[in-house]
């Protein structure tokens, strides 16, 4: 099962059988990604949902060829039919930042502490859109306004440690959008923003998507953000894609037990007046343990409410229950 869509041919980015294994310090490491496959078409918005540590950022980093050199990567990643895994530095130079850009999860880590943030955005413009300095500065301030930073000139001259978490995050967003790439990988771009700002950022992304036809890969742990924003959602668990489908269908009728559990966790009401103090919040039972990772059976088995005996000994194959959807769970085989 390579592709759940009829329009495979027009894929802008096509990931096939991607397996990534970090060269972790001592322990016998289990792979961070296992046989990941999906397509991104031009102008599409795709959400990636998944538990902490499920490999979302690893996926993002591998698309940009940024994993540590010691990492073992197999599979293929075709961008406009060219394999990104075969790229050398000069080939990357024409893709990173201009064609595929990334909003990093940790803006505090991804910005240089010794450069003014405005200059850091200007550097990206400089690398891809040569032009006079003055113009660049104006462009940067315009982009900063776009992401809701109204005091453009103050933010421009600030060092990262002089900005609040949310301001920093928006700088990172501005940096990624500055060259109007064809694909933006947004790794938790609204993680440190209040709901109003969150909506603003979603609007900005929607707008670049509509105006410039830029495809967006939106990594998040918050399903609520994807409703009304993303076309498709990919659900990851322990480095594997366990479910994929259009957002409305998946949200209305999740198939994989993990997706079901995850969506149920979104609280029903904004506040719960009947909760007693100290009462536990609902969570999925258990956690992904080390033994799960090496099991022959389904990786979700130890936490699954729908498991059968079969799930312990064999791992489920991917099935297509309906056009445009796929899921890896025995419940849907045949």
């Amino acid at each position, binding site marked *: 099962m390579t592709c759940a869509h009829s329009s495979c041919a027009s894929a802008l980015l096509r990931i096939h059988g991607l397996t990534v294994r970090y060269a972790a310090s001592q322990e016998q490491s289990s792979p961070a990604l296992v046989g990941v496959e999906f397509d991104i078409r031009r102008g599409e918005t795709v959400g990636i949902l998944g538990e902490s540590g499920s490999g979302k950022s690893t996926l993002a980093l591998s698309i940009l060829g940024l994993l540590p050199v010691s990492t073992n990567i197999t599979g293929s990643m075709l961008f406009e039919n060219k394999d990104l895994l075969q790229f050398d530095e000069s080939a990357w*130079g024409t893709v990173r930042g201009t064609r595929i850009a990334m909003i*990093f999860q940790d803006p505090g880590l991804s910005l*240089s502490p*010794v450069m003014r943030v405005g200059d850091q955005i200007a550097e990206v413009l400089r*690398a*891809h859109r040569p032009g006079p300095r003055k113009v660049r500065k104006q462009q940067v301030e315009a982009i900063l306004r776009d992401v809701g930073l109204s005091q453009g000139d103050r933010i421009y001259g600030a060092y990262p*440690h002089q900005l609040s978490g949310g301001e920093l995050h928006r700088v990172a967003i501005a940096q990624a959008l500055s060259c109007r790439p064809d694909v933006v990988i947004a790794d938790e771009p609204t993680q440190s923003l209040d709901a109003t700002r969150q909506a603003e950022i979603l609007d900005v992304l929607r707008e670049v998507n509509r105006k410039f036809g830029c495809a967006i890969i939106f990594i998040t742990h918050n399903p609520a953000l994807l409703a009304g924003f993303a076309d498709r959602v990919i659900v990851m668990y322990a480095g594997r894609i366990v479910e994929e489908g259009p957002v409305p269908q998946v949200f209305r009728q999740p198939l994989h037990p993990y997706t079901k559990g995850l969506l149920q966790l979104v609280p029903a009401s904004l506040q719960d007046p009947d909760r007693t103090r100290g009462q536990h919040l609902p969570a999925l039972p258990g956690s992904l343990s080390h033994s799960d990772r090496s099991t022959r059976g389904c990786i979700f088995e130890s936490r699954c409410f729908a498991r059968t005996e079969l799930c312990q000994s064999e791992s489920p194959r991917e099935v297509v229950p309906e056009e445009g959807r796929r899921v890896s769970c025995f419940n849907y085989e045949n």
Partner: protein
Amino acid sequence: MKYLERRVIHGLLLLIGVSILCFALSAAAPGNFFDEMKLNPQISPSTVAGLRARYGFDQPLVWRYGHWVESVLRGEWGYSFAYNCPVRSLLLVRARNTLILTGLATLLAWLIAVPLGVWTANRRGRWDDRLSMASTSLLLSVPELVIALVLLYWAVRIHTLPVGGMASVDFGGLGVQAKLFDLALHLVVPVTTLVLASLPLLVRHIRASMIEVLQAPFVQAARAHGIGGARLLFRYALPAAANPLSSLLGLSVGALLSGSLLVEVITGWPGLGPLLLDAALARDIYVVVGAVMASTLFMIFGGILADILLVAVDPRVRLGKV
């Protein structure tokens, strides 16, 4: 600028400490200038006794120290028995010469070491990095003395370079340009010695700091935005390495200075080195103390210079974070 103020105060305390130590050591060392005078049959014992009294050598050490401090404040820096003049006039010329030598050597060493260190860090593990590592470890194992001797031998062989001193005999009659050229020729051997001697450590340190910075997430992020090549190395990575490198600059000034004292003696450069050596042999103690103080002062200035540089490059230090 509290940070710099603190550095200046530290420097002053260091100077005072060094001067006290010098005095204590000079008192502990056997003999003094006048003991040797006594051996000279042409000077009568009473003259020597008179001189001793005049310079306060019959007084306790503390008194002499106080006397010396007073003369420092007056700008005399004590009196040289051997040259029969205030130490200051001796020091000024010699210190200037040492400053020319070490200043130039520091500048050159860093101008070569920074690009080399940055480049090899970027090419880590490739052939050019290996070559540079091999040659620096070779250089590292050769003492300064040997480098200086080899260079001197070479200078003698090729005849175009002057050997020893800092000016030719006819220096006074030359025009400004010719003077500078003459000076430059004289500088070749000592400066090259110092640069070669300090280069390997500098390159290795710069390479190591750069390797660390190049693995930092923000450098990765800059790569992800399509920034690469020299721009990434010099605009992103190098300033972030400023913190370790500025303390290296302070250290390297110290190392070059102490190295230069030796190199000056070998190559005949009329700096503080030969002065210090002669004065120590002659027990001309105020000159010794003065020369040591001048060297210390240079070292402190080197350190402060490095700090100013760091403050200019790294906003976290400038704004009182870290």
